[in-house]
């Protein structure tokens, strides 16, 4: 075995030489942090280093589970993620199906060009717009007042955060996320539609019996990925939009880790434990989702 490897190293030395920087990159920037996350089981101090700091076992995890934050950030993470899944996941599928029904190619292209656009605008600008449109003097407040409501700064109230977060995310990513479904749709055999028409199927029947089933494999794969990432909401948008008034509904695990670990305090061990808890749950979710999907539908990631 070792002999064979040694021979291979000599024979393909140029290839190994090329792959080396990539391997080093992954080792340093992906695997060293995994090693570094053992500070979650330690009372880490920078002076003593990762290895020199004393072990404390599961104390940091216990502190997190016992803290008032545990349920709050867990609930917020799961709820935001669940709403994103419930409303955000089907939206691009529906859009792709509707786009597929547009026969006028020019119109279809125009719609596509327009709806992809917000994906490319930076998150800072998007959040700037959200803050501006939802503040006391903003357009949305004005509309609420027009329909008889009261004018307020919408993001000053914890009750509105989830809606604004989920709705704006759909607005920004709807078009872009539909591309992958459109790609799958372009692979459906046109003869299927021809045959369905001959059998007297109308447009809805065709959508239901041909278009949608044609999308099922890609839907399943993306769904597994989403369920695997259920705990893994991007915190960039959260920390741009939230404020102490909305922590109650907006603070998720990763924004909590950022705030307690880097922005406010520097409790590295405690926040590493919180981060590790999240990564662990994610990993378990992904494996179970993949296992479940393989059992039920035969679609899987690996």
């Amino acid at each position, binding site marked *: 075995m070792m002999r064979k490897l040694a021979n291979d190293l000599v024979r393909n030395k140029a290839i190994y030489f090329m792959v080396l920087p990539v391997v080093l990159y992954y080792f340093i920037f992906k695997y060293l*942090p995994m090693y570094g996350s053992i500070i979650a089981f330690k009372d880490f101090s920078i002076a003593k280093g990762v290895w020199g700091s004393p072990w404390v076992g599961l104390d940091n995890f216990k502190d997190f589970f016992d803290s008032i934050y545990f349920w709050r950030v867990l609930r917020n993470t799961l709820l935001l993620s669940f709403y994103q899944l419930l409303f955000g996941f089907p939206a691009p599928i529906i859009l792709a199906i509707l786009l597929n029904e547009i026969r006028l190619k020019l*119109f279809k292209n125009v719609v596509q060009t327009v*709806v992809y*656009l917000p994906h490319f605008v*930076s998150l800072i*600008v998007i959040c700037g717009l959200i803050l501006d*449109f939802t503040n006391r003097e903003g357009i949305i*407040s004005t509309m609420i007042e027009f329909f008889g409501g009261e004018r307020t700064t919408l993001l000053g109230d914890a009750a509105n955060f989830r809606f604004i977060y989920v709705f704006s995310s759909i607005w920004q990513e709807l078009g872009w996320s539909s591309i992958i479904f459109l790609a799958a749709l372009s692979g459906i055999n046109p003869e299927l539609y021809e045959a369905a028409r001959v059998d007297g199927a109308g447009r809805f029947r065709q959508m239901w019996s041909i278009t949608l089933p044609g999308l099922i494999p890609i839907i399943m794969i993306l769904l597994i990925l989403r369920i695997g990432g259920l705990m893994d909401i991007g915190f960039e948008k959260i920390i741009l939009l939230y404020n102490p008034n909305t922590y109650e509904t907006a603070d998720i695990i990763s924004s909590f*880790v950022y705030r307690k670990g880097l922005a406010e305090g520097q409790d590295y061990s405690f926040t590493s434990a919180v981060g590790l808890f*999240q990564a662990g749950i994610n990993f378990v979710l992904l494996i179970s989702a993949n296992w479940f999907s393989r059992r039920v539908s035969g679609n899987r990631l690996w």
Partner: protein
Amino acid sequence: MVRGNGNLKNNTMTDRTFDILNAILMLLLIVVTIYPFYHVVMASLSDSNRLIAHQGMLLGPLGFSWEAYSRVLDNPNIFSGYRNTLLILFSGTLFNLFFTALGAYGLSRKFMLRKPIMIAIIFTMYFSGGLIPTYLLINNWLHMGNSLLALIVPVAISTWNLIIMRTSFEAIPESLIESAKIDGSGEFGILFKIVVPLSMPIIAVMILYYGVAHWNSWFNAMLFIRDRELFPLQIILREILVINDTSSMQLGDAMADQEGIRESIKYATIMVATLPILLVYPFLQKFFAKGVMIGAVKE
């Protein structure tokens, strides 16, 4: 509405109603997507005093004034932010391309450790050490804090892009590579003289993906950069748009004037920072979509 295929006999009443409703829905979607940007353009050109008194939708500019733009362009932070972002964009993307191409080509060849290396790489898509250890690594152990290196080296390779590129390299006929070998080409020669020139479309897609990521990224800069002169554009934008700190804007002396112009400065800032993307976007949109499609048909 013209129907490209199908015969007209099947064009029943419900089908036509559906077409019309669908078209209306799509038009509505266009309006909802475009309006916020339209609003920004109109507000940035508006007279600031009228803008502050106005509430609700803007159908056209209120009055007309370039003042907000001239204030934004006078702001030295915007200028240095642009400069830093462009610097990161060019050097970072070049760095990305080089290492991604190297890895993608290497991993598309057959060698003994290929499979374990691929598994180790893909594993990092599903499990990571997390924010805090990564921060400590970059800041305290590699001492990259407060330098633009922290914004380039740690994001040298995106695993997703690496896989897309590898898939595309694997499609190049083996016979081509074999014959180059017979002609005496080494692996590096094959990569840069044969594989890369044959893969220009996917490389263009990669340039766009990495480029846009560098242009939009801000979080690492917020974590690692402390000197104002090194701030990329997005961090400056965050101060103005999100934290709402216009103290760096060198406003006029009168407070009333400040309040008034502040709003239009915000919109002009958005325009100045987004215009480059908006201008190139229509030309690039197809490339991006292509990249997603290539990524979608893996294995």
